[in-house]
């Protein structure tokens, strides 16, 4: 469900926040004093659901941010389990260690071999701590590149699933060269001699996302986000006020619709009403259908043509003009 915190961005958010607080209060009251308030609570629940429905119908960018980060949103392992068969996980970058925030695997899609890479966010706190909340260390990017090389060697398409808050701001990640690791992946992916499909499923957080997101096709789930900086970070830098994140979310144009208009995203994959977590199978189905639609043609495209097109795709992104000074 969408929650109204932090920083309500509309009247609907405030209404929802008030209703949720009231429901919580009644529940506590009913628990503590053993009063039957089920009827009242049900009425309020229905009203809250009504407000949520209104929000889902036309979510603001800040709502979309919350949907993209929703704790129940389908994770990489859910997607992999439903989309692929014969999954064989690969481990380690052969240099330092195996990064649990990044998955690399050999798998079959509709019987055909592919290489799967992706950010591995956890489902609960325990798993998230183990997986560093889907924020890779340099060895994660390097593991992904190693797997992509395997794909390149056998001309197996690479399918990259993006869902990360971003690169990890830690001293060890810096010391082991995360900037270099990201740069290397970006460069190598731009000329990887096999098809690459990128699917942004949740949070596409800056460099940590782009490190596995240079490909022939960029697909994006309807309520995923893709951004150069988190809305909180942007608000803190620009306005010295992280609580203006909702405003920053608006300004950054980080929704799938915005990014399609900017030609960064090629195709939006529809999510069920209210977000992927409300019907994970439907969301996964949209991903499956898109892969089925695009893989055959990409497999058959000659590599040189593929690379020319991939280069042109990123080469043309941006908006420049002649200075008037």
């Amino acid at each position, binding site marked *: 469900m969408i929650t109204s915190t932090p920083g309500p961005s509309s009247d609907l958010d405030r209404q929802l926040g008030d209703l949720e607080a009231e429901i919580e209060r009644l529940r506590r009251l009913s628990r503590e004093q053993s009063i039957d308030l089920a009827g009242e609570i049900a009425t309020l629940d229905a009203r809250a659901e009504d407000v949520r429905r209104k929000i889902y119908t036309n979510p603001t960018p800040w709502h979309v941010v919350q949907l993209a980060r929703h704790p129940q949103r389908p994770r990489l392992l859910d997607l992999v389990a439903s989309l692929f068969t014969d999954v064989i996980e690969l481990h380690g970058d052969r240099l330092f260690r195996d990064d649990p925030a990044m998955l690399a695997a050999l798998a079959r899609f509709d019987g055909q071999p592919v290489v799967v890479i992706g950010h591995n966010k956890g489902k609960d706190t325990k798993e998230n701590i183990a997986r560093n909340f889907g924020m890779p260390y340099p060895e994660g990017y390097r593991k992904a590149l190693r797997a992509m090389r395997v794909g390149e060697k056998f001309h197996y398409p690479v399918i990259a699933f993006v869902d990360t808050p971003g690169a990890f*701001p*830690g001293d060890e990640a810096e010391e082991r060269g*995360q900037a270099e690791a990201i*740069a290397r992946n970006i460069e190598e992916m731009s000329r990887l001699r096999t098809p690459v499909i990128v699917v942004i499923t949740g949070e596409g957080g800056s460099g940590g996302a782009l490190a596995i997101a240079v490909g022939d096709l960029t697909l994006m789930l309807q309520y995923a986000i*893709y951004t150069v900086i988190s809305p909180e970070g942007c608000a803190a830098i620009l306005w010295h006020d992280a609580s203006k994140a909702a405003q920053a979310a608006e300004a950054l144009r980080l929704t799938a619709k915005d990014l399609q208009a900017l030609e960064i995203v090629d195709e939006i994959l529809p999510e069920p009403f209210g977000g992927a977590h409300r019907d994970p199978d439907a969301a996964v189905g949209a991903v499956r259908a898109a892969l089925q639609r695009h893989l055959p043609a990409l497999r058959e495209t000659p590599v040189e043509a593929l690379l020319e097109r991939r*280069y042109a795709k*990123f080469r043309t992104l*941006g908006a420049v003009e002649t200075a008037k000074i």
Partner: protein
Amino acid sequence: MLNWLRRPKYRSLQRREMPAGLWAKCPRCTNLIYRKELERNLKVCPKCAYHHRLPAIERLEITLDEDSFAEFDADLTSADPLKFEGYPQKLNEARQKTGRPEAVITGDGTIEGYRTVIGALDFHFMGGSMGSAVGEKVARAAEQARDRRLPLVIFSASGGARMQEGALSLMQLAKTSAAIGRLHDAGLPYLSVMCDPTTGGVTASFAFLGDVVLAEPGALIGFAGRRVIEQTIRRKLPDDFQTAEFCLKKGLLDMVVPRSEMRSTVARLLSFFGAPKVEAVSVEAPARTETPQVAESRSGGSAAEG
């Protein structure tokens, strides 16, 4: 020394960079230094060797042979694709301050006679941030180098991607890195020099992709900011964290080169990688006995000298 610059406004920029007065205060050792001495010393503090940040134009001036520079895309600048609040004003302020339309200058020229395509980022222009225009100019410079079979040298100084252009600025990491990739595929040398500071998206793209990666002493180099790292790991970081010297020790760089030796070091590397040499070398470049090369007659990437 500025005679290859045809735009008079650069001169006013020079004055602004160094506030009026005969003496300058070093921000690190706080000693008062005779301004002329500081200028003579390439803006390196004679007392503590602090390397002052240089505007892009001065960087090119101390690196290239006199009169050898021809600028590319001099008027190219970022548009405001997101209609981001306050961005046009910020761009205008930066233009006023630097007299430049954008945060990078690119072009071609010679260094001790070696022909090269060159770029310099300007930290004084919106923190050297990379938006569409910076990405476009760097990519075009790499393409020029490839088409004309010249080396590429880029001096970086940047806070990272320009967030006012949203995901489009993130895409400049991909655009520039892809262009550098093609340069590498073509067998042409690319030297990256990181100056103070080089952080964020620029490090996560072209700055770390050089065949040889150099840095100036004391330069701050890293992806994530010190403060956010300290908040994340809840520990204080050592003073030298993310300095050029620290990065060298960690294996992230090839060399740390003082400003006084940067020009000759880059020239030596260009020579090693077989960069074409012009016949008429500048008076500033040391005389050489080798047979001069011209780009057109050169094929492949063989090292003719060094």
